[in-house]
């Protein structure tokens, strides 16, 4: 039995244990709805939305890595009796009912079980982090498409790609990487010269002479990559956490994980990317523009969690998976290529994971108004229309 929970007696769910947090109440129709859901989708575990102090708390679809850092299941959980003693993060048949089936004044989240892999520790803000040590020392191919653009950051003019490469070379604690910079023909010679000086032996320069196509440029880099892992990276980023590569790599090595994204911040420290959000036939960023300390009711910005997708501004996956799903689709020359990539990854059965523990600045303009070609929107909806209607991992 989970501490702080009791079993609710019922007649029609012989094989299941209905566990309710002490002090919580079931909605009048809860047992009927649970019975109906389990009749349609026999599962090892069922959980649902709830009301806490009168406020609706929506919960995400099953997120096993998140569950290792944060028990988000709420005050009601229905276990198949044979699964009651198992680590819930290892269950394979779990269903979330997106309806309020219980109420409580305050949810008391049990401490997650010790993870089957990884080392649990406390973050500075008191939340739990599971650190996954990197297995071996696989080569990571960092692919950076660029045209050698400059910007003023913090009052200082900088060549974006040069500073990105410098930051990776000088400040990343993981050392087994190669840098594949795919540079337009028009890239200024001075930028190339500086890249060669800064990148040293780890730099490989690749020419791009065709018309602009972000996806094709990344695929060009991947064609040259020697690494077991590919790290797709924009040229206007600057890593904050020295261990950002091993944090992402450790997660990518977990069973079932396909691609890993990072917390990206605007220059002013507000959030640029907290994972992708797909809803109402539209794709955007979770927490866009939020102050770093802002969060949702569940505390989603403080934990590693499954998401619908991540931005290709910083995304890590195996080279094998990248090739098996056809890389970035050149159908999406400028926009939504990462949405398509994420959905391709998930269509293989693998998950996409976002972590707040790999943190980078992304010097994209807050007011960026990407010119989206109608053909890109049409192609995205044609491929993934039903996947863009509701987001299983984000409910606000």
């Amino acid at each position: 039995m989970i501490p702080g929970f009791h079993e609710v007696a019922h007649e029609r769910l012989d094989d299941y244990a209905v566990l309710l947090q002490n002090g919580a109440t079931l909605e009048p129709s809860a047992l009927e709805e649970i019975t109906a859901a389990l009749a349609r989708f026999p599962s090892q575990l069922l959980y649902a939305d709830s009301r806490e102090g009168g406020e609706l708390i929506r919960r995400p679809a099953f997120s096993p890595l998140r569950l290792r850092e944060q028990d988000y299941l709420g005050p009601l959980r229905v276990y198949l009796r044979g699964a009651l003693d198992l680590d819930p993060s290892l269950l394979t048949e779990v269903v979330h009912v997106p309806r309020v089936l219980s109420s409580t004044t305050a949810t008391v989240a049990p401490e997650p079980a010790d993870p089957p892999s990884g080392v649990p520790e406390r973050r500075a803000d008191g939340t739990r982090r599971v650190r996954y040590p990197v297995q071996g020392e696989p080569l990571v191919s960092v692919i950076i498409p660029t045209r050698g653009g400059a910007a003023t950051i913090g009052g200082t003019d900088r060549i974006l790609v040069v500073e990105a490469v410098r930051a990776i070379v000088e400040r990343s604690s993981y050392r087994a990487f190669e840098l594949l910079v795919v540079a337009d023909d028009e890239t200024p010679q001075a930028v190339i010269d500086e890249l060669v000086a800064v990148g040293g032996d780890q730099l490989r320069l690749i020419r791009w002479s065709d018309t602009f196509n972000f996806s094709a440029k990344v695929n060009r880099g991947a064609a040259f990559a020697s690494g077991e892992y590919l790290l797709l990276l924009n040229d206007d980023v600057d890593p904050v956490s020295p261990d950002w590569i091993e944090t992402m790599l450790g997660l990518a090595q977990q069973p079932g994980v396909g691609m890993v994204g990072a917390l990206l911040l605007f220059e002013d420290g507000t959030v640029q990317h907290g994972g992708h959000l797909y809803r109402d036939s539209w794709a955007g960023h979770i927490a866009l523009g939020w102050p770093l300390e802002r969060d949702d009711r569940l505390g989603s910005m403080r934990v590693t969690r499954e998401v619908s997708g991540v931005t290709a501004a910083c995304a890590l996956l195996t080279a094998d998976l990248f090739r098996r799903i056809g890389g970035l689709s050149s159908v999406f020359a400028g926009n939504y290529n990462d949405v398509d990539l994420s959905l391709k990854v998930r269509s293989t059965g693998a998950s996409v994971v976002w972590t707040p523990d790999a943190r980078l600045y992304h010097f994209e303009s807050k007011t960026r108004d990407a010119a989206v070609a109608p053909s890109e929107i049409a192609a995205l909806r044609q491929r993934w229309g039903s996947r863009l209607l509701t987001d299983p991992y984000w409910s606000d």
Partner: protein
Amino acid sequence: MSDDKNGAWVGPESTLPADELAARERQLALVDRVFGLEAQLAELSAQNSLTPSERLRTEQRLIEMQGSLAWRLGRAATAPLRVAQRFVVRARAR
């Protein structure tokens, strides 16, 4: 190092034989095309490609939408049209 006459950069460039590079890129494009077609096919039977939680969530969104004021006002506003359409269908069937 200096700019060449076309303005393109020069430097220690990584290269592959043109046919090998083309083959690698073409393979990615072909696999992507297959994925795209499979995704479109799955869209035609979307109900089967959604997980149980996604199906329940989609159904719940539909219930919430049909319970919304905007939906009910829209239904009320278009009620005369639906009645008229029923008459037309019946009249054509005779």
